[in-house]
């Protein structure tokens, strides 16, 4: 869906929750509206900087009609005068040929209220549906009140630039399922690598891995290294991590007296990942996957489709914490 059309807007400063709810009711009434977009979750986006908030909102708009959530954007300013400003937008758009309407709620929360966001969002959540809290520009502490008010936590480990974030995520995982956009975006590499071992001829090489090289930025390369160690039962020192702009993986393995090299490589700035298997004296195969455009929405649709605990991610994270932070 293209950028949605704004049908009506209401905004005010220093409002009560009841004012916002009444305004939402008022906005819906006079319109002859097409069907309301089916809602399957409440998505709460929390940001402390306007630029991050706009970025997250643009990601949601990019999903458009295919993003079946009531969206609640919370912009926090803990040092401002205590109060809440609100804007409610009634939006219309098309998804799969059908006209739909939906509403966004934006709350600018200042001062003491920022410590009680859980009480603020509750009236805006859709009954019986999961509340997904997306911490756009920072990780919350495990005892953050918003964690209690959420069913699922959405984060992006790549954005934090160091491996310390893994410990925080591990503590969040003790409270709620965590969906990590960074992990979701690694799915093409993982799927391509897994696919190289399909078939009875190639599968035995998984039991004969001799060395693994993972390239990439801090975060993604650790998660991939942790994933391979965890899933293949490897010793930690089999895996070498290397800093690089783009993610690539190489595996050397032996089976049945033959050696093999498996690679999943993103070359240069092309948005294309190539997987290759070369078996000594045997078949050679390759496949290519084009990555989605690096828009804010990359990975978000997949992330919002899998809101349950991911034991594979949790295993990778557990090992990543123990890998050398190379």
């Amino acid at each position, binding site marked *: 869906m293209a950028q949605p059309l704004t049908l009506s807007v209401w905004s005010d400063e220093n409002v009560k929750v009841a004012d916002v709810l009444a305004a939402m009711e008022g906005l819906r009434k006079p319109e002859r509206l097409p069907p309301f977009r089916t809602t399957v979750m409440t998505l709460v986006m929390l940001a402390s900087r306007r630029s991050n908030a706009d970025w997250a909102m643009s990601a949601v708009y990019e999903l458009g*009609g295919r993003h*079946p959530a009531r969206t609640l954007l919370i912009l926090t300013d803990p040092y401002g005068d205590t109060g809440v400003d609100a804007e409610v937008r009634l939006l219309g758009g098309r998804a799969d040929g059908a006209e739909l309407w939906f509403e966004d709620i934006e709350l600018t929360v200042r001062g003491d209220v920022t410590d009680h966001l859980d009480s603020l969002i509750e009236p805006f959540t859709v009954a019986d549906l999961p509340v997904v809290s997306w911490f756009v520009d920072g990780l919350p502490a495990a005892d953050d009140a918003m964690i209690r008010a959420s069913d699922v936590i959405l984060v992006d480990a790549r954005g934090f630039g160091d491996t310390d974030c893994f410990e925080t995520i591990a503590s969040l995982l003790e409270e709620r399922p965590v969906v990590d956009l960074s992990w979701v975006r690694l799915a093409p590499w993982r799927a*391509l690598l897994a696919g190289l071992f399909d078939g009875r001829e190639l599968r035995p090489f998984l039991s004969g891995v001799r060395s693994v090289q993972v390239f990439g930025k801090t975060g993604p390369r650790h998660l991939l290294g942790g994933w391979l160690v965890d899933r293949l039962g490897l010793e930690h020192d089999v895996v070498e991590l290397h800093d690089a702009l783009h993610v690539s993986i190489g595996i050397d393995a032996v089976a049945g007296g033959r050696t093999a090299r498996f690679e999943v490589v993103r070359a240069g700035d092309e948005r294309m990942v190539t997987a290759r298997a070369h078996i000594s004296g045997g078949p050679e195969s390759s496949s290519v996957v084009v990555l989605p455009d690096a828009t804010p929405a990359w990975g978000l649709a997949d992330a919002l489709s899998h809101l349950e605990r991911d034991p594979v991610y949790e295993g990778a994270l557990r090992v990543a914490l123990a890998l050398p932070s190379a």
Partner: protein
Amino acid sequence: MTTGDDVNPLDAGLGTERRAPPLALVVFGASGDLTHRKLMPALEHLARRRLLPAGFSVVGVARTELSDDDFQARMAEAVKDAGPEWEALTRSFRYVAGDYTETTTFERLRRVLDALDRERGTAGNRVYYLATVPQVFSKVVTGLGEHGLAKPKDSDSFARIVIEKPFGRDLESAARLDAELHQVLDEDQIYRIDHYLGKETVQNVLALRFANAIFEPIWNRRYVDHVQITVAESLGVGHRAGFYETAGAMRDIVQNHVMQVLALTAMEPPATINARGIRDEKVKALRAVDILTPDEVATEVVRAQYDAGWVEGEEVKSYRAEEDVAPDSTTETYVAMRLSVDNWRWAGVPFYIRTGKRLPKRITEVAMEFKSVPHLPFPSDMARGLQRNSLVLRIQPDEGITLRFGAKVPGQAFRVRSVSMDFSYGAAFVEESPDAYERLLLDAMVGDPTLFIRTDEVDQAWRIVDPILGAWAAGDAPLARYEAGTWGPKAADRLIERDGHRWRSP
């Protein structure tokens, strides 16, 4: 986590459990329309979704003389706006030119397949797709059998064959085709494709019925007054007139698509949602359909053909004026019928079916019309706008579900009228629905026959349809006429109105 040779531990959590194993897909009729329009786009989608293995290739077989390079270029062009992954994939494609009756064609095919096993790691696995006219099905299968290509290469590999409808043109020819296939292939190697079953919303009939506690208890004669199944097309015969003249709506749509939708609607809950469970129950439902006698055909079935008219704002010619259609053609472009499903669940519940070309719009839906409440406690003038409850499963387009129920009209008076609660698939899921061919092609590759039609289903569908075709062939049934852009002939209205019902306006 340690590794065993049977499972790939790297697949966990990726949702790629249904990724195809290494294989060669051999397409007979590779230069044809179906290959270009449906199969290649479906493969491109599968590649984009990372559901094809690295050890994968397509071998095209057709009479047209082409080199591998020509074939690769044609297949690359068959998908508009494809990315580099498609171009890279097509570079592994091979082509075998030849006649399906010649030994050399199959010998060349075997050499190409053996080479792919060595060079691309396709592991001896084959899926043969017969995208040809049905007249050559048995020639191809015989050729595969005679050259040792129809059986798996070894105990770890597989050989499957996908065939497109029509599966015969009557009960006898279907049985003959089946016998020819079974001379070479086991039933579990045969995947009879009806693309309707690959549609998400057709499969969702199963989810709606068997994953929800609220629908199944009312899905029976106690609550359902009647069922309407509509398969409407706004298009005419287009370039298919040659085929359509010999088939008509009964063979083209009713024998396959409609019977499948009817079976899914009427079937009992299977013990498990697997191929055998579902197909056993579908066959049982089809067996319960009352076979019409010639006399009943005259009263329970309406056939018709469209005249000129206006459809979707465009003037269209009559069927008989279409290119390649005989000016005195008696081929039916419309069928309406009333069927009974004689079992405990459905006894006494009429199933009204209608399908046609040049109807006002393209729509496929199943509507369960429920019985009225036993006593309406409102004065009749207060409930004038109240209709029966209905549950409509929209299969295409705008896939979704609509539930119609009564609600109070706001105001001082207690007036009641019907309202609709509408659910649209497109607005509820982040995931895009796979195309029907994409879904079914992958099913054939991973060896899941659930959505393919088993031989006894084909047989049973013909048993229902054959007597009707026989009665028509005897020349007794009139051919009604309807104006293009209308919902069919008056005779179809009378068919349902005599039971006190009306066709829905979908």
